[in-house]
């Protein structure tokens, strides 16, 4: 468990990969409520990055 906790901050690399690999999400489809996928992806990662930060925060404290 202790070693697992040491590697928990690595979760914070995920938003960097997801957002800096631009060709992956630079597309119009699928759209959600009129928003091209590019914008949906950015919105989703605002939320996901916050959730991941919360997970790491809680995990390191426990």
């Amino acid at each position, binding site marked *: 468990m202790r070693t697992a906790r040491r590697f928990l901050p690595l979760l914070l690399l995920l938003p960097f990969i997801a957002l800096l690999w631009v060709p992956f999400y630079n*597309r119009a489809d699928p759209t959600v409520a009129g928003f091209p996928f590019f914008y949906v992806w950015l919105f989703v990662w605002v939320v996901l990055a916050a959730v991941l930060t919360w997970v790491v*925060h809680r995990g390191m404290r426990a």
Partner: protein
Amino acid sequence: MSAPATGATPALNATALGVFVFFFALVTVVGFFAARWRRGDLTHLHEWGLGGRRFGSFVTWFLLGGDLYTAYTLIAVPALVFAVGAYGFFALPYCILTYPIVFLTFPRLWNVCRKHGWITSADFVEGRYGSRGLALAVAVTGVLATMPYIALQLVGLEVVFEAMGLSAMGIGRETPLVIAFLVLAIYTYSSGLRAPALIAFVKDAMLYITIIAAVVIIPIHLGGYGAVFAGAQHAFAAQGGAGGVLLKPGQYVPFATLALGSAFALFLYPHATTATLSASSATVIRRNTVWLPAYSVLLLLISLLGYVALAAHIHVDNATLVVPALINASFPSWFAGFCFAAIALGALVPAAIMAIGAANLFTRNIWRPYVDRDMSHAREAQIAKIISLLVKFGALLAVLYLPTQFAIDLQLLGGIWMLQIFPAVMCGLFVRWFRASALIAGWVVGMVLGAVLAMQAGLKPVYTLGMGGAQYGIYIGVIALAANFAVAIVATPIAVWLHSDAPADRTTRGDYEDAAA
């Protein structure tokens, strides 16, 4: 003359002005009252300039939100989206990626600064590396990058005054700016960081109302967001440039490097460092990195206003006027006044914190070591107050007498420069492998290279590098930082070889960890 401006009313908008003046007066009262809030001895610099390190999660959230999302953000980001489309959205990955970085670094900085009574990042660098020269480099970079940033806040104010038709009333552009500046300067002087912290509550609440109204109500009239994006794409196609609601392949690398470089630079700015160090514990900072992304949602909505304006066929001579023009065209004048007040407060809160951050740096890391080594606490706080006035006065003069483009260009350079203290400050939080002299050498190279490349690129943030036949535009800050790191890494073994003893490190391993509860 261009097509008739749909929004920018040249005539004085009396209702809007009345509402605006009401909120401005309200906030002025709040600013002076702030001196009594969580009362502390304001003759100490950590009380005046750091609010006594007593701000809990809730206050810190408003303070940082009010600090980072400035009037210039509200004006310039939608203007960029209006002009170039998806490329302007680099601000979004930038803000998303900032918070994980802050989560990993700032709790350590807070702990060590609290332990030693430090109030600036330069204080930390001096204690860590035992080098006043390196601390001076960090302080000078901070002050240099902050000055044009304050000037741009005043530019934001100017845009709002213009949209309310003040120039039509025969009042020159100077008078309202000077009044706003005086109000800001006086309450910052008397209340310190407590003033923007308290005003941030009002500002952020008004801003959320403004933005949500704008992104909900206006698109309904335009037929929903599908129609907004279609309208924007249509407008870009008609213009025929590189703009569009999706990125062109040539924009991938500039987009990603701008986002990454800016994310690393943001919290190195003195105003961000100051607001973060004013938190009451390292846990408050961690909690805020979880909740501050709520402002990134706001930023996404703000950026969309650029597309909304395109779809609504707003025509402006200058893209920076697009948000005020959209507000004037879409809302009744009383609500327009409310929105303009929100944007204006969006200028005052960060401008106050920037001036305080610059004053802290100047007093602690330039004045104290080089002019008056033995000054008392009271004198230190007094000098910081005076510096905060001078900094703002300088920004006001720059806005009144220099071309606006000058402030914009300097702010661009400031972002590139700010990134150059990353090795000293952020790496220093984890390892002390680097030598101060090597870090200074890297800093000099990064600063000069950044400025030279920016000049060569025609004062644009992106420089085109040719690699193996292909051309990549890369954010200059990232190129300069890479050179900075390379020099520091090569020069450190040389520094060790030349004089093997490093100056004493005043911090210990435990200083960086949370104190046992």
